[in-house]
């Protein structure tokens, strides 16, 4: 085994892991903290990718800047989706079967709409940092992975600060555990859940932009991420952001080593293996409550 190859595989894996953390952050909030199984999350991420793509190609805006511009729109979209979900399912306690089917339909419809608008060709963006790389000794840091990773970690740190320091953030952490106690503090649990879900969809905007910086996308690529993000979310311990980060880095490294030494076509199987193993051995995850 070539040691340089291994080092670079680990570096690429860590950078990839940072990106995975950003992709999973939204799911950690919606699935881990709110108990809303939003399997349509990858579709929202791809929506973010394509919006960043359109703004980049049409107006020449940097994709990551574009995604920050789109945050309010995604926040509003998230609030709307939650409202529909709440009125139709959660209010009647029917979220399990029909809520899942609802999000599955949403995933599918978003994918088909993107397919009808953008077609099946791979789309990619232009930015100054794509293509060059930073090297330190034998180590290579490709900027198209480094920049997304830094952005992702910044977003992740912001989320963690928001959730642990602000009142609303703490209310979000509390809402799935004890809504009644929240009511006693004169906070409306539904409002908190709406805010939290909207934030989780807003993260999809940024995750989408960095996805399209890292790799060219087609509408169906979102499905590859479903197994991955749920594997990370479960492995990290549902709803624990630090756990999510550790799990994401771990998965990134394992996947990177797998694709360097066994071929990239095997990488999708890794996340499922980890998911099944976690479910069978330690369902509460690494840092589970």
């Amino acid at each position, binding site marked *: 085994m070539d040691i340089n190859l291994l080092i670079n595989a680990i570096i690429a894996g860590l950078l990839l892991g940072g990106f995975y953390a950003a992709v999973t952050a939204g799911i950690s909030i919606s699935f881990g903290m709110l108990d809303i*199984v939003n399997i349509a999350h990858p579709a929202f991420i791809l929506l973010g990718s394509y919006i960043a793509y359109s703004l980049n190609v049409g107006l020449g805006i940097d994709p990551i800047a574009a995604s920050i511009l789109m945050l309010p729109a995604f926040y509003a979209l998230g609030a709307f989706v939650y409202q529909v979900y709440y009125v*139709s399912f959660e209010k009647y306690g029917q979220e399990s*079967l029909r809520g899942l089917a*609802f999000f599955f339909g949403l995933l599918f419809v978003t994918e088909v709409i993107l397919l009808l608008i953008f077609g099946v060709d791979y789309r990619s963006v232009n930015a100054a940092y794509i293509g060059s790389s930073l090297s330190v000794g034998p180590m290579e840091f490709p900027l198209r992975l480094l920049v997304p990773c830094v952005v992702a970690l910044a977003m992740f740190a912001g989320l963690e600060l928001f959730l642990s320091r602000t009142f609303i953030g703490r209310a979000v952490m509390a809402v799935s555990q004890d809504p009644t106690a929240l009511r006693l503090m004169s906070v409306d649990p539904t409002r908190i859940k709406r805010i939290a879900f909207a934030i989780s969809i807003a993260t999809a905007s940024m995750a989408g932009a960095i996805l399209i910086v890292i790799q060219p996308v087609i509408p169906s690529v979102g499905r590859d991420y479903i197994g991955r993000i749920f594997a990370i979310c479960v492995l990290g311990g549902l709803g624990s952001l630090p756990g999510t980060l550790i799990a994401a880095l771990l998965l990134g490294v394992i996947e990177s080593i797998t694709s360097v030494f066994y071929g990239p076509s095997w990488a999708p199987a890794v996340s499922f293996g980890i998911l099944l193993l976690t479910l069978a051995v330690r369902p509460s995850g690494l840092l589970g409550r």
Partner: protein
Amino acid sequence: MRTPVFVLLEIIAGAALFLILRAVNNDYLFFAGYTVLQFIVLSTAWNILGGYCGYVNFGSAGFFALGVYTSVFLYTVNQNLEDLMPEWLLPLMQAIFPLPMPALILLGGIVAGLVGLGTGYLTLRLRGVFFAIATLALAVVLQTFVVNWSFVGGSRGAYVIPPGTVPILGPYIQYLFLLMLLLVILSLTCARLIERSRLGYGFATIRDDELAAEACGVPTLRLKLIATVLSGALMGMAGAPFPYYIGYVEPGSAFDLSYAVNSIAMPMIGGTTWWAGPMLGAVLLGTLQQIATVTISSAVNLLIVGLLLIGFVIAAPDGIIGLWHTWTSRRSKP
């Protein structure tokens, strides 16, 4: 109605359908009809786990593809019999191969059932959501394996050349149609039997309140495993004749997400609590899609399915049968 009478009625209805289509004598009708029948099997199979137990399976495409690739595997084995088999085994194998279609269907069902058992055993002890996610990921992983497995064609795909005709019936597509009709009868009978047996009541307790059921001594894990295996096996059986129907399979078409969406949307639209619900949904949606594919485009027809699924789960959670019940009960009131 007693079960034998029900089966007899099914056979009569199936025979009538087949004879009418044969009298029209248009091969396209058999091709289109085969797809609709395939969807009846898939959605009825999905409903055994999803509708009766309340456990959502997103991996229908994976189970279906297991059947498909079991057939492709055996077909390829048959093509390369001389190279693969040791000398002493060859005469025996040459006597067995090529396997008849019913044997392929059975084997496809066994493989899919075993995979269902394995996945279920690992994930069914947890909350239902985990099972749903695991099935979704299962489809992706199975696809990864098939893409990397060059023996069954890998990502290039594999050609399966069906025999042109069969004795007595004539065109091969009619033979496949007839077999699929038998599978429909099998799956509907299964669903109806379950609905009226101890097993079905057990499933219903799991759907309504699993914790309470467990506390009352219902062996929930065993029942869920039975449902998963049964449902997976039926999906695999529906997939086994597919390569012979289509002639060329590649992972993208065998694992198409539209199978997963359709097998959820059809029971949801028809109604999940009655054995005829999935069939109703499959006939309506399947026919609609056949028409839309021919007249508009296949991407648009998938959009229609997705929107119908969302619309129905929001507005009519009990499907068409639920709508019918509210309508008749409103009319009977003074």
